[in-house]
């Protein structure tokens, strides 16, 4: 297996790992966003709570949760490793850099956006994952939906979540299509479609997620 670790540690291998874990996280976000969006059904969170309970009890989902944390950890560690390796490759910095002339700022800031996302994620996991999985606070009277309402009464928390969603949107805007390029999937037939789907995905996911704390804070849903 020396050949595998050697190639996964090459500059191309690190990017392959980044792409595979990234696309896996992309698939998770669809499930997460889809389930959470049921709060917009205005049924007092009944569908959402039922979905959350299913997710909490289903053994396949429980197993996937472990895989998800594994994938997330790999994505973070590989990103960190790439960032540390890459910054060594230009020991003397340019005095003048006109980055905007040749690339998008968010494509050059994936490490920064990823770090912001990680900070957000720590807060987010503390709010909901820790609350629902590791404490006994979840009851018939105080459902996950009630906890969401409680958490988002704070305007500071809402602001943090909206900023987190903006970081996520830009991270996905570059990351989605970039993953396909790293996998070698660049073709005149498919690439324009991939870029289009990637942009739509990034905007829809970020906007839907950002709408949740805002809607709950301002009591726009019931």
């Amino acid at each position, binding site marked *: 297996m020396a050949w595998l670790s050697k190639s996964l540690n090459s500059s191309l291998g690190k990017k392959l790992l980044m792409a595979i874990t990234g696309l896996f996280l992309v698939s998770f976000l669809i499930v997460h966003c889809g389930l959470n969006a049921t709060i917009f059904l205005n049924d007092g969170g009944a569908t959402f709570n039922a979905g959350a309970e299913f997710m909490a009890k289903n053994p396949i989902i429980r197993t996937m949760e472990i895989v998800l944390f594994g994938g997330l950890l790999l994505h973070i560690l590989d990103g960190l490793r790439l960032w540390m390796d890459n910054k060594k490759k230009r020991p003397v910095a340019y005095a003048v850099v006109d980055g905007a002339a040749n690339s998008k700022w968010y494509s050059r800031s994936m490490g920064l956006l990823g770090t912001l996302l990680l900070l957000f994620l720590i807060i987010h996991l503390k709010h909901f994952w820790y609350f629902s999985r590791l404490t006994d606070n979840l009851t018939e009277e105080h459902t996950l939906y009630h906890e969401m309402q409680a958490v988002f009464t704070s305007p500071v928390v809402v602001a943090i979540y909206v900023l987190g969603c903006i970081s996520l949107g830009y991270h996905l805007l*570059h990351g989605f299509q970039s993953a396909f390029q790293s996998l070698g999937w660049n073709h005149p037939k498919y690439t324009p479609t991939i870029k289009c789907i990637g942009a739509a995905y990034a905007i829809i996911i970020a906007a839907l997620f950002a709408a949740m704390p805002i809607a709950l804070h301002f009591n726009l849903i019931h």
Partner: protein
Amino acid sequence: MEGNLNLTLKIWRQKNAQTAGKFETYQVSGISEDMSFLEMIDVLNNRLIEEGDDPVAFDHDCREGICGMCSMYINGRPHGPNKGVTTCQLHMRSFSDGQTITIEPWRAEAFPVIKDLVVNRSAFDRIIAAGGFISVNTGNAQDANSLPIPKDNADDAFAAAACIGCGACVAACKNASAMLFTSAKISQLALLPQGQAERAKRAEAMVAQMDEEGFGACSNTGACEAECPKGISLENIARMNREYFSSVFTSK
């Protein structure tokens, strides 16, 4: 060739690889807008020589935009502000009177400065030597039509072969990555029948050498493609990824 451009030049001066460099500021006046950027530097150097100073060292050869020798990172961009040209084909009409122009060498761990604006790009030669070749018997060239090649493949191979190895991709990349160069050199052979015999080994060997030389990884920002004077496409990097991994996972 007198003109009416008066410019302030901030140029990186560095005696050799061992000493630290710094920016020096020079004024040049009466520059014609029909001069190339290198001719403008020639004007400055003539004056420096007459004054008994050390002229600015820079790489150049054909001055026709085809040899890949000239470099220079001009106002934050490799080969200056125009698309699809090398520094020798950049003309002073692209600048305005009174402008300050900052000129730096390519900055990369793998491209150490030799002097002033001259960097050592032999890392590229070693990447080529690792696998960017085909083995053929010497003797008469065979008939050109004896090997059928689809037109699309010939076009793509030719487009990749347009790479002049100037290093602008490395200079433009935030990670000083040489992926665009290496992928063009892999692609130009992978697309043609003559390149098939060593195809799998080639990608692995060239990528290993590229990493060995100290170039960075790819962030897919597209800066290399945007700054490449020969318009080498990012599709080549995707092809390199395919070539590399299909070799890694199938070679014996």
